[in-house]
């Protein structure tokens, strides 16, 4: 059963279309990330759901109730803001109790204390209840912001880039904590982020946005392995994906200066008559190795040590691509290397539509 749904929702700011005819169904208890660069429509989607902006057309519902005309305070949602939006003039306790004291919510002060203490305990912030927000570290403020949302048991929990103000290490730890929290609470979470790693690690499903339109809505595994188009393929992933322009003929991909034998893996693709295709392959799909000079196909331009592996930027014909290599082997700039393409990790795109070419038996769908 769907819990949150958007039906043909459009929002314009003046001449700019922030969101175009969005259809999206989120199931009860799901953790859905809205992923995209700034201006892609993800934050507009969240604000529409929260009631902070009004939709121009279309229908938004939460728990089968149409909420288009309801103000935020009557939508039964909670939200964590990017800058936390803690009330600076209230203590942590008062911040957590604030939603419970709103008009129309009858809680005795005893009940309020109990709920606040319970949430504080789950988040490990019991010791901070008497402090003011400015006396807390970034991570602690983050927890208070989460707690203020949790204390009400909202129908839907909205998080707007909640980790972007934390430092790198803390961000990775908070990912785990938020995921654990979701497992524990089981409430529906809509999470906005521009960080593809956050979306991949935490979500049950990811909705990728670009230019005000939903590009793909699928599980992290499918998003990563079966991107619906070139945008998704490039946006998701630690590094930019390698795109090689060329043609497919005779079970081979012919790019400029590189030929990839495809074998039967290309069977069933709907390739254009002239065979023009864009080949996409992530860094980890190409392995560089030392080969005999006459078999070398690439020249090393840059070397990046990233820990478990070495990433090489190499020149192949006129194209520059990134690939991985064994860190125990020493590579020098200008060295000639050979490249091996992992056939399971190839993606093919139509140069016209930029959409992925799918095998008939692949179940991944384009939204």
């Amino acid at each position, binding site marked *: 059963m769907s819990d949150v749904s958007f039906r043909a929702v459009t929002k314009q700011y003046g001449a700019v279309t922030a969101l175009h005819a969005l259809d999206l169904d989120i199931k009860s208890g799901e953790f859905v990330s809205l992923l995209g660069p700034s201006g892609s429509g993800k934050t507009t989607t969240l604000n529409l759901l929260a009631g*902070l902006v009004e939709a121009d057309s279309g229908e938004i519902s939460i728990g089968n109730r149409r909420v288009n005309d309801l103000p*935020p*305070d009557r939508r039964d949602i*909670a939200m964590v803001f*990017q800058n936390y*939006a803690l009330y600076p*003039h209230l203590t942590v306790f008062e911040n957590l109790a*604030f939603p419970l004291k*709103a*008009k129309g919510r009858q809680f005795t002060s005893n009940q309020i204390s109990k709920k606040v203490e319970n949430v504080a305990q789950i988040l490990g912030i019991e010791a901070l209840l008497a402090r003011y927000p400015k006396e807390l570290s970034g991570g602690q403020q983050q927890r208070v912001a989460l707690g203020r949302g949790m204390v009400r048991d909202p129908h839907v929990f909205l998080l707007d880039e909640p980790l972007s103000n934390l430092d790198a290490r803390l961000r990775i730890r908070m990912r785990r904590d938020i995921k654990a929290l979701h497992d524990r609470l089981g409430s529906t979470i809509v999470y906005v982020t521009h960080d593809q790693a956050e979306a991949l690690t935490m979500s049950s499903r990811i909705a990728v946005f670009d230019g005000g339109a939903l590009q793909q809505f699928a599980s992290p595994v499918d998003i990563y392995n079966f991107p619906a188009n070139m945008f998704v393929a490039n946006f998701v992933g630690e590094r930019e994906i390698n795109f090689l322009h060329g043609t497919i003929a005779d079970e081979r991909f012919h790019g400029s200066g590189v030929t990839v034998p495809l074998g039967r893996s290309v069977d069933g693709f709907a390739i254009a008559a002239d065979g023009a295709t864009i080949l996409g392959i992530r860094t980890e799909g190409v392995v560089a190795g030392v080969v005999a000079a006459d078999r070398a196909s690439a020249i090393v331009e840059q070397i990046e040590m990233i820990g478990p592996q070495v990433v090489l930027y190499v020149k192949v014909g006129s194209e520059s691509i990134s690939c991985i290599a064994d860190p125990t082997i020493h590579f020098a700039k200008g060295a000639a290397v050979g490249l091996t393409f992992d056939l399971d990790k190839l993606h093919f795109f139509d140069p016209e539509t930029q959409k992925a070419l799918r095998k008939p038996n692949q179940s991944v769908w384009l939204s």
Partner: protein
Amino acid sequence: MHYRREIVLRKLLSFCVNVFIAVVALAPIVWGLSTSLKPTQKILSLPPEIIPSEITFVHYRTLIAQNMLTYVGNSMIVSLVTVMLCLTIGTVAAYSLSRFEFKGRSLVLLIIIAVMSIPIASLIVPSYTLMASIGLTDKLVGLIVLYTAYQLPIVIWIMYAYIGTIPREIDNAAMIDGYSRLASLRKVVLPLCGPGLIASGLFVLTFAWNDFVVAAVMITSDSVKTLPVAIYSFLGYFGREWGPLLASSMVSIIPVIAIFILFQRYFLSGMTGGSVKG
């Protein structure tokens, strides 16, 4: 050790400059205070005594006999009511301008800037013309509405700038937490506006307390005179009797100087028409 001598010289020079500036700035006030505490016969004596050899409050007592308490009371009423009106009307307007996009918003901002740049002196004759035709001259309420109209733009401007520094997410958070617009303004935005309210409140307070031009034009009856109008009429009444005249001046300026020294930071932000730091 050449530079040491230079440092000492520099310090000495800047000390002398500071003393000179301080004397020019404060001498008229100190001299007025000192005169107001001298017995009448010593006031005109030559050479003048800078520090009075004999202190008396006789001129201040004269003032009380001259209805001084009424004038001070009138000034207080006018100032406080003006401050309250300006802050209430101004803050809600500033909130609206800062938080909503609506048709005519830029027109409203334009009007505010326009009124701020009209010199009050060029408003007094037209204002008198209107106020006289609707029977609001010679009434405290007439002064209050004029002061409010003159000072509202600056209050809106200061509060607009101040509310702009409060993240919008704070009121959004309150609304999501279950509060209506109005409730979130009252519970969250207003408590955070303190410094802006103090800055604009003090600005209006000193304006209303100090204003002489508008009040001198609007007020004629003794019972509704504000302090500055009273001082102006003393100028005619006492003539060259400087004692009571300067005593009344001191009554007018000492509270302002005290408030200024206590709340200096807010004063400055009011003068520069915007942000309060810290």
